[in-house]
């Protein structure tokens, strides 16, 4: 699959296609810095003086590269697809090589950023112990089996997972029911119907 870029995006990258691949490499480095630290305007001004162009051009180039990476990741382009897409933009094979390298190294990092759009609490851990309640203030002789559980759930907030713990208890009968239900859920997810739905959604 080839990606098509918007017109102004293509224009922004136009400047870069005219540069030797060493300069493109430098721009890639700047894009990497942008990804990890955000924009660095001072440096852009310095470079713009060196190359004798507007600062805006430099900025657009860097934003263009970053946006190209983002779009490619969003559509999960393979390496070959990315190569072809870059070539159709008018980059030389050498320049393309540099960009492809950047794409391959940064791919996972960008996926991480793009993933988990809505934060929901996920199961993290469950610790349990078996208890027998043998006496209480109001009933001196009793034998009640109980399973006390500590459920830990985690929620991703700005890349930091926040953990929440809850104490719960249950009895063997309900425990059996819960296990059966969960196994049923797992079984259903592997059923032919589910697989069909999954396959239909993937294509």
């Amino acid at each position, binding site marked *: 699959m080839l990606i098509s870029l918007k017109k102004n995006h293509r224009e922004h990258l136009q400047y870069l296609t005219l540069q030797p691949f060493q300069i493109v490499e430098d721009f890639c480095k700047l894009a990497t810095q942008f990804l990890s630290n955000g924009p660095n305007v001072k440096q852009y001004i310095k470079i713009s003086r060196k190359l004798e162009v507007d600062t805006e051009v430099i900025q657009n180039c860097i934003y263009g590269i970053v946006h190209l990476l983002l779009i490619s990741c969003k559509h999960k382009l393979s390496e070959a697809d990315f190569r072809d897409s870059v070539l159709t933009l008018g980059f030389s094979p050498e320049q393309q090589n540099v960009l492809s390298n950047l794409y391959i190294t940064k791919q996972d990092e960008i996926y991480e950023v793009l993933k988990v759009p809505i934060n929901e609490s996920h199961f993290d851990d469950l610790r349990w112990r078996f208890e027998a309640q043998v006496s209480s203030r109001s009933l001196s002789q009793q034998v009640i089996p109980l399973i006390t559980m500590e459920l830990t759930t985690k929620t991703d907030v700005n890349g930091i997972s926040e953990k929440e713990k809850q104490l719960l208890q249950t009895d063997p*009968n309900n425990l059996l029911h819960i296990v059966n239900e969960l196994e049923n859920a797992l079984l259903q997810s592997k059923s032919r119907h589910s697989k069909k739905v999954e396959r239909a959604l993937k294509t």
Partner: protein
Amino acid sequence: MEEVDKIIIESLRNLECDIGVKIKNLKQFDADMVTGAVSSCLEAILHSSFPKKLPPSMSARLKLASNMAEQIKDLGFREDMGYQSILYYNEEEVRRVLIFLIERLPRETIKTVSVEQIGYVSRIVKTLEDNIKESLSKTWVPSCFLRQGVRETSQGYIVNSLGDSCSLRTEKLDIPDSRTQNEELKYYWIHNVPDVTKQCSHRKLIPSLLYKDSEFPEDFDLKNVIRKSEIVSLNTIETDLNIPISSSEKIEKTSVDIINIDKDIETRAEQSKIDKLSEELENKKSQYILLQDKVKTKEALLKELIRTKNEEQNYLIETLAKVKLKTKTQTVLSKEENLAKLNNMIEKANDRLAELAKQWHEIQTPLLEEYKCLKDSLTSEESKYQEQKEKLENFKETEIKLNENIKEKKDLSQNLTQQYKQINRKNNRAMYTRRILEIISNIRKQNNDIQKVLKDTREIQKEIKNLTGQVDRSFTLADELIFYDAKNDETARRSYKLLAALRDEFNIILKTLEDLGVVERECRNLEEQIEIEKSKEVSVKLERVISDLRQIQKETDMMKKPSS
């Protein structure tokens, strides 16, 4: 399968099943051994006896085999099971059946042991076990259908939810007490106080009845502390209030004074006259009272005098009698002789009295001492006796307790030794663990291999995908280029046509390649199936069935002959 077979054979030998030393795996089992193994497992599980060997008669064999199959199915064996599995066994099936039966074994043998347990802890453990068993065997019910989250069963109850249990909180209840003498309180109790059941919410009633958490004992210090602080604060308030009160009183007093002065001026003249008269009256009155008092004192004096006069008279009569007696004795004593005699007698009597007193004293003191001693010893003896008695009672109690303990302990030790023996008999844990470890390492190795293969396949798939992508792309590229030229150039047009044909051809080739792969896979599947079918040895079994059938026919014929 070697490992599994070893474990199965080991367990069967533990069941005292007759299996020769030479036999190492299930392949070497014959029909009799299979029957023996299954029947001894069933015996251990169901505690009813089964024949260990197949009977010679075919129909009896059939009956026995189907009976055993039925039993195994009843135990919960899910797979296909019938008489044929025992009579015309195959290795796989027998292995599965035996694994199932051996898994069932240990539970049952222990259950019979752990029925009678003694002692607090083991009793609790026993009830716990029963409770869990009950709880796990019951079908699940939503807790909204249960009252107070508890389900009653034949043996007691199982708790399905403690969500309805409220925390223990008490309230002070007002309960009448018939021992009190306070009439007002009684009146209140008779007419006003509601029933205890209406004094607080239902969930709080039982704890409030049982525990007095919200009441302080009578002599609790806190109460005094509170009272003291209250008194202090009240006092300060009162003193604060007193200051304005006294000043206002003063004001009132002065106003009253002023009014009085006005009146005085008016009535002074008349007042003076009246005053004089009343003064005189007063004087007369006091004089009268004075005179009356005097009369009273005189009368009292008179009474006194009369009394003294009477007394004097009495005294006089007495003295006169005395004088008479004295004069008589005077006449007797006037003789010297008589006097001396009397004196002597008196002295003698005195001496005698002293002697007797001494004698009495002498006799009395030792007796008294003795009595005292005896009394003391008696009390000490008594206290000792009491002590001993208490001790004895204590000893008796402890003896009973110890006896009980001993009995319990004895039973327990007996049970434990029994269990110990049983455990000893199957003490091949180490072997099992070693085997399990070996198996795990094997599995790990296999897992690694599987991972490797998976990786390979994935790589190949990736490659295929890449290649197909490339093919597609190159076709489209070529297509675009030639199509662009084809508008002007005749040769290009032809080449474009050729390109289209080429693509079709290639597509067909690719398709056939894929089909080939599918067919190959199918072939492999079929081969596997054939292998499986072969391993079942149907033909041999069929032959056996036919021969058995013939034998049955023969048997029936034999039976018919004597009857006819």
